[in-house]
């Protein structure tokens, strides 16, 4: 291959950090303007109904630092909300979000996010006096909606809230003239397949797959960490997300494309290398001789310091000796009875004259020894050689040309030793795993011995060597190949490659690796595998059908003329739907599952991420008109919503249950007749008054 055709595809990681949001100006022009909040589990997009674009887009989470245990005041916690978090990896473990999968369950967190939203919009009135248009999940549980309404009405004092579904908003924005279609909304946690007939969604035939963009990121992240364990810390979830957004695509025919990757040429042509940031090791500009000089200097300095210390010590000892001798002479003048005698003994810090003489002799010996040592040191300094280098590398540098052969032989032998040790370890590990081998039987024998129940004469553990028996029975065979051994092997191999390359032959990689290459990760099958998760959730252990299987199932719930209406407008929306290659793939799958020569049409949202917000912008007046007002909330509770074509339907359960009760304590009633007593309270208990649910117009229920 000509070198001009080869393109080495190495990509860098941007590692973008979030930018702090400003506090937007708030003035009279915003009076009573509806506020559109697309409350997604990944990002939240907020803007006025008079804006063209959402004003604030932020990650829907916050990080709460726990103060050090030293400070006793528990209320002092540092909270970083959304875009205030600079480096999200630093606070990954303290992240909290109002969402659990795609439903809002944690309303204190939601309160924090709303605080952030309203304060950055600049709202400075005593209550938030704007109708809110808020997105919720498809088939949002009443409980969750109830608590959301309570938060909005009671805490923020809003006049009304309209709940709508993001997928439907996006659909209606892009399909003003198409009342029928099959909506496929790929979200962060979930993917919904929703048939839409005459403009209204049909919830009973919709299905939800618990696979979304977050699962794709997480799978890629864990997979890369397991494939490249040496880069465990460098592969973060944010980087996995970035790789997912920029380098992944969906294969049109997965089985044939994935088999192509086993071909080496195909691999070399299409592999993508991601360059992880690394710090180059500081190159020592100093040459070998200079290093030796430096080491000699250091050694010399050490020797001098030692000599000085010894001299000082010697002086002290000699002074002490003269003092003691003087004391002895002084004592000879007195008798043991006189106080001066005792006084002298005390000064010498001894209790009897014998001790004193002993001390004097000891000091004499000490001084002698020190003097001898000093003599030795001075004589040794003259013959000082270069201190033995500690680095292993220098051991294997050959000294003379004549010894080269011998040295190469030694290196080969060392290499063979390491390989044989590894092979033996591997063999032993395998033997232990099989049932009838001697190694495994020996292992069981040792285990049964250790497990003996007799308590008497049990002195296991008295010596340190006893614990080594656990190394013997370890199934791993005493741990996998140690790092030291690996390093040594690398050095030997590099030396061998230099001097006798034919020895290694094809057994090891012959390409020399630069430092930069060591920090690259290669994306081969991952490029199509990650997108494939949407179609084969089994790869992630999720026991649900993928997009294709679910479309097939949903279509099967209708009869053929309705199927044709749905299939003529298959609409893709949601963030992950912007993966390249998704549309051709879905077209191919539809071709396979639809009857011969039938028509279908697949289209994508113009802006998969923002179309939900734009859709709410388009229909904001109608949405506000169909919203839940404060009066409704106080009378019927926060979950009863009016039915409109962008929202959920509401069903009341047939039994009044207080939201205060613990889950599971409500006894399920076997009666199907609704309970006659209705206890509507402002706290929003489920009420069973006679207001029936609003039926959708033109309800063409399928057989």
């Amino acid at each position, binding site marked *: 291959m000509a070198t001009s055709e080869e393109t080495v595809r190495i990509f860098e990681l941007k590692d973008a950090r979030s930018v702090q949001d400003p506090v937007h100006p708030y003035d009279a022009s915003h009076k009573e303007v509806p506020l559109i909040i697309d409350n997604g589990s990944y990002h939240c997009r907020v803007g006025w109904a008079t804006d063209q674009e959402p004003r604030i887009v932020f990650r829907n989470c916050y990080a709460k630092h726990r103060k050090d245990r030293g400070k006793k005041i528990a*209320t*002092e916690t540092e909270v970083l909300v959304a875009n205030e978090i600079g480096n999200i990896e630093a606070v990954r473990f303290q992240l909290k979000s109002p969402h659990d*999968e795609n*439903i809002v*369950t944690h*309303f*204190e967190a939601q*309160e924090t996010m709303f605080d952030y939203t*309203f*304060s950055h919009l600049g709202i400075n*009135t*005593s*209550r938030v006096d704007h109708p809110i248009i808020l997105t919720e*999940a498809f*088939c*949002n*549980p009443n*409980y969750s909606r109830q*608590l959301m309404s*309570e938060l909005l009405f009671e*805490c*923020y004092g809003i006049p009304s809230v309209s709940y709508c579904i993001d997928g439907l908003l996006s659909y209606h924005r892009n399909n003003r003239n198409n009342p029928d279609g099959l909506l496929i909304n790929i979200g962060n946690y979930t993917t919904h397949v929703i048939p839409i007939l005459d403009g209204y969604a049909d*919830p*009973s035939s*919709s299905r939800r*797959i*618990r696979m979304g963009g977050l699962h794709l990121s997480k799978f890629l992240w*864990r997979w890369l*960490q397991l494939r490249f364990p040496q880069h465990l810390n460098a592969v973060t979830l944010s980087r996995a997300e970035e790789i997912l957004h920029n380098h992944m695509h969906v294969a049109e025919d997965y*089985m044939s494309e*994935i*088999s192509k990757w*086993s071909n080496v040429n195909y691999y070399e042509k299409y592999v993508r290398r991601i360059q992880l940031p690394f710090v180059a090791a500081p190159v020592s500009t100093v040459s070998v001789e200079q290093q030796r000089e430096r080491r000699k200097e250091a050694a010399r300095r050490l020797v001098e310091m030692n000599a000085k210390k010894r001299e000082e010590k010697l002086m002290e000892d000699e002074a002490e000796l003269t003092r003691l001798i003087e004391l002895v002479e002084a004592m000879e003048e007195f008798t043991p009875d006189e106080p001066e005698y005792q006084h002298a003994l005390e000064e010498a810090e001894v209790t009897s004259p014998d001790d004193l003489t002993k001390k004097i002799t000891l000091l004499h010996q000490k001084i002698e020894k020190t003097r001898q040592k000093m003599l030795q040191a001075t004589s040794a300094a003259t013959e000082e050689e270069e201190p033995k280098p500690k680095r292993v590398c220098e051991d294997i540098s050959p000294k003379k040309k004549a010894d080269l052969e011998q040295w190469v032989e030694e290196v080969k032998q060392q290499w063979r030793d390491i390989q044989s040790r590894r092979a033996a370890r*591997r063999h032993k590990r*395998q033997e232990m*795993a099989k049932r009838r081998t001697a190694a495994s039987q020996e292992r069981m024998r040792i285990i049964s011995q250790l497990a003996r129940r007799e308590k008497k004469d049990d002195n296991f553990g008295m010596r340190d060597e006893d614990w080594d028996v656990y190394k013997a029975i370890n199934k*791993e065979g005493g741990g996998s190949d140690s790092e030291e051994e690996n390093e040594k092997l690398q050095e030997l191999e590099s030396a061998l490659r230099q001097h006798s390359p034919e020895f290694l032959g094809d057994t090891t990689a012959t390409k020399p690796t630069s430092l930069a290459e060591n920090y690259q990760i290669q994306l*081969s*099958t991952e490029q199509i*595998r990650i997108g494939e998760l949407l179609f*084969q959730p*089994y*790869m*992630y*252990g999720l*026991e*649900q*059908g993928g997009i294709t*299987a*679910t479309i097939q*199932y949903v279509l099967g719930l209708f009869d053929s003329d309705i199927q044709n209406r749905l299939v003529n407008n298959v609409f893709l929306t949601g963030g992950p739907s912007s993966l390249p290659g998704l549309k051709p793939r879905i077209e191919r799958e539809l071709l396979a599952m639809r009857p011969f020569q039938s028509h279908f049409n697949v289209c994508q949202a113009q802006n998969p991420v923002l179309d939900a917000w734009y859709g709410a912008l388009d229909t904001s007046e109608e949405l506000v008109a169909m919203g839940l007002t404060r009066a409704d909330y106080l009378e019927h509770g926060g979950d009863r919503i009016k039915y409109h074509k962008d929202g959920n339907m509401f*069903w*009341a*359960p*047939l*039994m009044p249950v207080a939201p205060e009760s613990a*889950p599971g304590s*409500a006894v*399920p009633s076997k*009666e199907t007749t609704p309970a006659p007593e209705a206890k509507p309270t402002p706290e929003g208990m489920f009420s069973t008054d006679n207001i029936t649910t609003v039926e959708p117009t033109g309800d063409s229920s399928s057989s």
Partner: protein
Amino acid sequence: MVTTEEVIEEKEEKKVPVHVFKNPEFQHTAFRSSKKRGWRNLKQIISLERTYTWPDDSVHYSSIDAPPAFTPAKKYSDVSGLPANYTDPLTKLRFADASEFYRVRDLPMDIVNGLLELRKANSIVG
């Protein structure tokens, strides 16, 4: 040395900012009765929903879960991602050909467990 007065001042400065637009007397229902109630997570909410009786035509969150696929799952290698026809009986990892087999046998325990966990095959039952 930080005196007690300075500590108190710090505390006052770092107080949580009270927003103008919030009702200061608001308390979440979950915390109104007892402080320890806490928030229900999604699983609890779903099971709570199931305990009620609903009208026949109602649809709730758990009723729209997608069913498992009818076609059996394809197997892919845990080492490379290629289609895998073989499984290692010792580690239960899947591999595509002989060279991958040697790599599978050389993998350390934590990576083996990580790969199995990734496809939720790491339970000791079955």
